[in-house]
């Protein structure tokens, strides 16, 4: 442990020096205001249309979705989402709780929900992809390995530094989104109830497990799940970075698999074994909000186990390869 801490410190400082983390912050600072502006526009049109009464707007949304259920051109798997959406909205309406209560907290919840599968993983790749490969392409890896430290410790310190930055990135996404959206929508809304626990049984929605959660707790759970997803993505990017010599190649590999994930979830309902791929299981926050899983038979437990297995295998491969491999040229 005594020899590890200075190594971790060293790696952390190297990460800060590379300024990747500042790039991540900059991306957030530029993109979040754009989303806030879009959300503001939506809120404005709704106010004009429905006499600023959210209940009427929700009721209209229910009817619109009912109509699309009638259409034969809408694929069956999309209808599942609509059915559950209709039931959720009816539930919110009956309990007189605005599911889209304007406010910085609600915006943040929505934003984190949408960012969980692609946006945050991309930010994480910005710091993770070159963590080992850059040492190799610049040749500094030889300096690192000639020091009297065991190889696994070198790699382990890099991993810990990476995991620290994963937490920092998830935290910054939350903080920046809350601070910026709060400027427009206000900083209130932590105690608004959010309903969780909708389940789909065939074509019926099971409401027996539905319960209200204050929004701060919902956000906390959401952040926890996003953190887990981010850790998995970071570990996989870490492995790719060990295996691939070039940083560009390692970024492309990770990006391709993440994007493949979003494409697959949209069309994988026919190919059920796709559920064993990690990128299909990234949308953990869905289980919280009650949106149906992309593939039959996926549950939170299932997704967590799949992600954990992928992460464990990736760690095993990274450490075996890194400790055994010859460093040439």
């Amino acid at each position, binding site marked *: 442990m005594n020899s590890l801490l200075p190594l971790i*410190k060293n790696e*952390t*400082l190297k990460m*800060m020096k590379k300024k990747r983390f500042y790039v991540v912050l900059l991306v957030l600072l530029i993109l979040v205001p754009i989303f806030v502006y879009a959300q503001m526009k939506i809120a404005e049109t709704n106010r004009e249309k*429905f*006499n600023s*009464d959210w*209940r*009427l707007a*929700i*009721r*209209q949304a*229910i*009817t619109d979705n*009912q*109509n699309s259920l*009638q*259409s034969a051109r809408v694929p069956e798997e999309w209808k599942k989402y609509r059915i559950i959406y209709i039931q959720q909205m*009816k539930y919110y*309406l*009956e*309990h*007189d*709780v605005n599911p889209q209560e304007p406010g910085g907290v609600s915006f943040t919840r929505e934003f984190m929900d949408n960012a969980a599968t692609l946006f945050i993983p991309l930010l994480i790749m910005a710091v993770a992809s070159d963590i080992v490969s850059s040492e190799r392409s610049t040749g500094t890896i030889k300096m690192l390995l000639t020091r009297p430290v065991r190889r696994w410790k070198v790699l382990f310190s890099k991993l810990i530094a990476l*995991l*620290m*930055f994963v*937490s*920092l990135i*998830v*935290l910054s996404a939350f903080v920046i989104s809350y601070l910026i959206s709060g400027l427009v929508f206000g900083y209130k809304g932590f105690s608004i*109830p959010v*309903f*969780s*626990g909708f389940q789909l049984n065939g074509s019926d929605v099971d409401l027996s*497990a*539905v*319960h*209200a*959660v204050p929004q701060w*707790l919902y956000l*906390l*759970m*959401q*952040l*926890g*799940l996003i*953190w*887990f997803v981010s850790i998995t993505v970071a570990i996989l990017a870490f492995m790719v970075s060990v295996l691939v010599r070039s940083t560009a190649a390692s970024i492309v590999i990770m990006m391709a698999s993440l994007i493949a994930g979003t494409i697959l979830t949209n069309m994988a309902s026919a190919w059920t074994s796709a559920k064993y791929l990690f990128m299909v299981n990234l949308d953990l926050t869905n*289980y*919280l909000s009650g949106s149906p899983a992309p593939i039959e038979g996926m549950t*939170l*437990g299932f997704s*967590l186990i799949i992600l954990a297995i992928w992460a464990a295998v990736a760690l095993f491969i990274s450490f075996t390869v890194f400790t055994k491999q010859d460093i040439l040229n």
Partner: protein
Amino acid sequence: MRASSWTWRLVSWVSVVATLVFVAGFIYAIKDVLYPSASSKWSSGPAGGISSVTPQTNDKEIQIVALGDSLAKGTGDDTGEGFVRRTVNVLQKEQKAPVKLVNNLGVNGMTTSGLLPSLNEQGIQYALKGANVILLSIGGNDLFQGAQNIQSSKGLPTAAELEASVKKASMKLRQIVVKLHEINPNAQLVYVGLYNPFTDVVDMRIPGNDAVTSWNTKATAIMNQYSQSKVVPTFDLFVENSSKYLSDDHFHPNGAGYEQIAQRIAQGLK
């Protein structure tokens, strides 16, 4: 060197604390999804639910809510406006007071027996309470359900079947109108009468006309029991002009047909 140790301290502390918080959230999330606690269940809502809230009404504005089937929704109109949006447009030109379409709750394929239970839904009641004009279109699917995609005379309802549907559905219509008045006694209720979409099908011209006429008579009798309630006839529009006013599906009106219906509704509103 001092700057770097300061950075290290900050980064390590913030990330460790954040990680602990995330882990706590993660564990709680697993617990909440896998074993949702019944104790935190919210059966009645924060303040008794939406039924305890009254929508804001505004007498200076004409606030329209449309209810019913695909005609209310505007199916068949290439512009998507339907008679509802077109009525609003006409009224906006004619009336001094601002006219607003609050909700269009028309759902494709809606029948009287589907509409009646949905009136118990609190969200729909809430929308209706805020309206001062309610446009209702229902019954077409009760009479001609299944026939709308059939071009040949096979599978079309017989005169006896039509008569039975008229009888059954008109009872439901009465219950719907009673319910609507219960929910909002002050609004003007406009019922859009039925037309026979099959006047050009030889076997359906007379039985269809008879059934629709009988239906419209019954509907008028129901509406006459209330003040501020009326039936707007559409039957005569389509009898000779079905090719002019019907859309390609031979069932729903087209844009021109909806425009005619809208004109009539607007003429009858005070």
